[in-house]
């Protein structure tokens, strides 16, 4: 079948559109489809986590050894993780830290969280410091975007924490 658009290429993408109940079908070659912004893979939108995980397991490509054994806390093995794409518990992040770092880099482009710093119910001094640091960044941002109401709230929050340091 030839491409509806250029008339020469081999049609590999078959697009059916239904607009207000009128159905129309186009047959396009790979190049014309790409020009029209259509992906040739059927599901470009869903995050291919399982693909990532499958790649990690491919022998040869990454000769790093896969962790054996299981998470001390919940018993999840690395094979379990590869199958479901879900970790078992907070401890899994420590158990599989090295392997996760590579995965997180590929998913998110990095591994370091720079958002809110969590302050647990009974914080240590270092935790307090980190938190105040993050709040200062937040404050600067609010000032930059001239959101003074928000800035005032953050400033108050920093003040309540400072005597404790």
């Amino acid at each position: 079948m030839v491409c509806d658009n250029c008339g020469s290429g081999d049609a590999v993408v078959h697009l059916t559109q239904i607009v207000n109940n009128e159905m129309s079908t186009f047959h396009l070659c790979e190049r014309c489809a790409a020009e029209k912004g259509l992906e040739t893979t059927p599901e470009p939108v869903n995050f291919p986590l399982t693909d990532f995980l499958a790649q990690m397991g491919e022998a040869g490509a990454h000769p790093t050894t896969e962790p054996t054994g299981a998470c001390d806390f919940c018993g999840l093995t690395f094979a379990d993780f590869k199958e479901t794409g879900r970790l078992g518990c907070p401890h899994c992040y420590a158990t599989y830290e090295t392997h996760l770092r590579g995965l997180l880099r590929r998913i998110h482009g990095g591994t370091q969280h720079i958002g809110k710093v969590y302050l647990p119910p009974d914080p240590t001094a270092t935790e307090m410091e980190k938190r105040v640091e993050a709040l200062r960044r937040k404050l600067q941002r609010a000032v930059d975007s001239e959101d003074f109401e928000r800035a005032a709230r953050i400033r108050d929050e920093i003040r309540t924490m400072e005597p404790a340091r």
Partner: protein
Amino acid sequence: MSGVDDLTPIPDQGLSWLEASGDHADIVMSTRVRLARNLQGYAFGPRARVNDRQAVLRLFSSSAREMSSLRMGTLLELNDLDSRSRRILAERRLVSRDLLGDAESGPAQGAAVLLSDHDPLSVMVNEEDHLRLQTLVSGLRLQDAWNIVDRLDEELGQDLPYAYHHEFGYLTSCPTNVGTGLRASVFMHLPGLVLTKEIGRVLQGLAQVGLTFRGLYGEGSEVVGNFFQVSNQTTLGKTEEDLVDHLDRIVRQVIEYEAKARQTLLRDARAVTEDKIWRAYALLRYARSLSFEEMMNLLSGVRLGASLKLLPGLRVYTLNKIMIFTQPAHLEQAAGRDLPSAEGDAHRATFVRRILETEGDVPPGPPGEGGLS
């Protein structure tokens, strides 16, 4: 908690996000921000045992009683609800389909949702993550939505020991959510871009700037009625404010493209566009049987018409309401019984006819020139 067979205890029925009040409410139906949080010392949802789930629910509900924003809320344990009420919660987007469990076994032990009585705020308990804090507001209001959910997170975090890692941030069951645990989504109606065939390029552009899109009801669902849910793809390595601002900036650009596409339609194909819109309206106004999908496609045309003032006298709120109340569980609730799909289609058509008759005030003739009067 005793059995709840209808949802009357839910404040405003969890539907304030339908009111079409926020910015660009004709193009952006709603804005949602959710934070995934887990508690230290318990396995995550998919691996949690019944004891874990019950402990998480207990800890959360006793903590929620102390929170100013949740104290007067309604806690619904999903196993205490009948299946129709559970599906209604999902149709109102207050809980995910995952929380309902599969059709056979139903929700997992301890699966629950807490709905705030004064903020558009809810917390899902024992889904994939222990807690999913969510706010759902009308129109484009990303910064507001983030502030609402951030405040609750601050309060809850002071009381509940969250699972947090100095490098990876807030820990989640799925590594795609780790870090901030934040997913912000904007639910948009983009018929102009679809009709002018520009949508492919726009969606491809979204992927290039780290955003992702889905159809109507989240993961894996198809695009129906030209509704797209646009959200951030990554959650780690950026601040929450950056994620929210970035999405806001891009969504505003998409709105501009959509507005331009609509102007192009009016300029180059006004007669055809008007005809399509009026045909869609006529079908909705008089049809005797409508599948949900057909109705959504027709509503898309009518929504475009209302937004372009080609169908005067029709409010976006009315159209939002139709979308929610014509879903299967809502129709069954109104009928007071289960409806096989053919009957459901008839009930749907009747509902749409009635609401357009009572709430629409569309004059019979087309506005402006072109009509025979």
